[in-house]
């Protein structure tokens, strides 16, 4: 009989490795891959407690986590592909589109969005100032 704490220790070690991977690696694909490690550590913890408590609920929740992980990987890799097409970077340090006056850029983005939806007189189509910023 293997005690519950050993399984939890394996799960927590995987979690720590995943956190270190997210913080350490510079490639955005490796950051996504480390998030997979973190999700797997959560799964191990759920299954260990489900076995210790003789309950089926933990396995059902792991099923949902697997679904969410599949969706997350598909969307994350699609974002990476879109980013690589737009700017040809994979390094997390160089992805700084929203850096600087981030609030101003977000406000300008919503201005663009709203003027595109509801065009009216006197408002420029782009919503951006002529000279850029």
């Amino acid at each position: 009989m293997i005690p519950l704490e050993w399984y939890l220790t394996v799960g927590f070690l995987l979690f720590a490795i995943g956190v270190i991977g997210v913080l350490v690696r510079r490639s955005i694909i490796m950051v996504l891959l480390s998030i997979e490690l973190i999700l797997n550590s959560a799964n191990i913890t759920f299954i260990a407690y489900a076995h210790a408590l003789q309950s089926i609920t933990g396995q059902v929740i792991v099923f949902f986590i697997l679904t969410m992980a599949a969706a997350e990987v598909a969307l994350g890799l699609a974002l990476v592909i879109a980013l690589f097409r737009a700017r040809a970077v994979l390094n997390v340090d160089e992805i700084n589109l929203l850096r600087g006056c981030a609030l101003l850029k977000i406000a300008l983005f919503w201005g663009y969005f709203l003027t595109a939806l509801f065009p009216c007189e006197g408002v420029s189509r782009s919503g951006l100032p002529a000279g850029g910023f």
Partner: protein
Amino acid sequence: MIPQLLFFYFGGVTVLSAIVAVASPNLIYSALSLLITFIHIAGLYILLHAEFIAAVQIIIYAGAILVLYLFVLMLFNPKQESRYLHRQVPVAIFLGLVLCGMMILAAFRSEILGQRGTPDPSVSPVQAIGVSLYTDYIFPFEMASFILLVAMFGTILLAGRFVQRRNE
């Protein structure tokens, strides 16, 4: 004795190949050692009597997610950089070890307050999961299918290449 040996094999290989996956400079090697990690985690699930989850783990993680990663890696073929690690390595390792130590301490010091389930011996575990999914968890089940649908639409919108029509 045999389950302990199997646990140490599966757990040890899981942790070691996870370390290799995080530390390897080659992205293909990282993905392949993550495959080893996933398969040995499935072995841990079998030790915990969760055979259905083990099968699903191998099918989804090792079969679908890893293939997706390998496709993207081979699509980009990113060049191997000499400086693939961030400069915050010591801080990250310190933070990770402190986090892990605190969680392990909490796991060994605490006691379980949760209520024990009452498994029905006449029903197999896979059947119990199916019944539970379609009765108690029917709304989360439908939401999961909706999340998958939205993820599919979003992936097609983000990564698809749309050719603009010339004459409209």
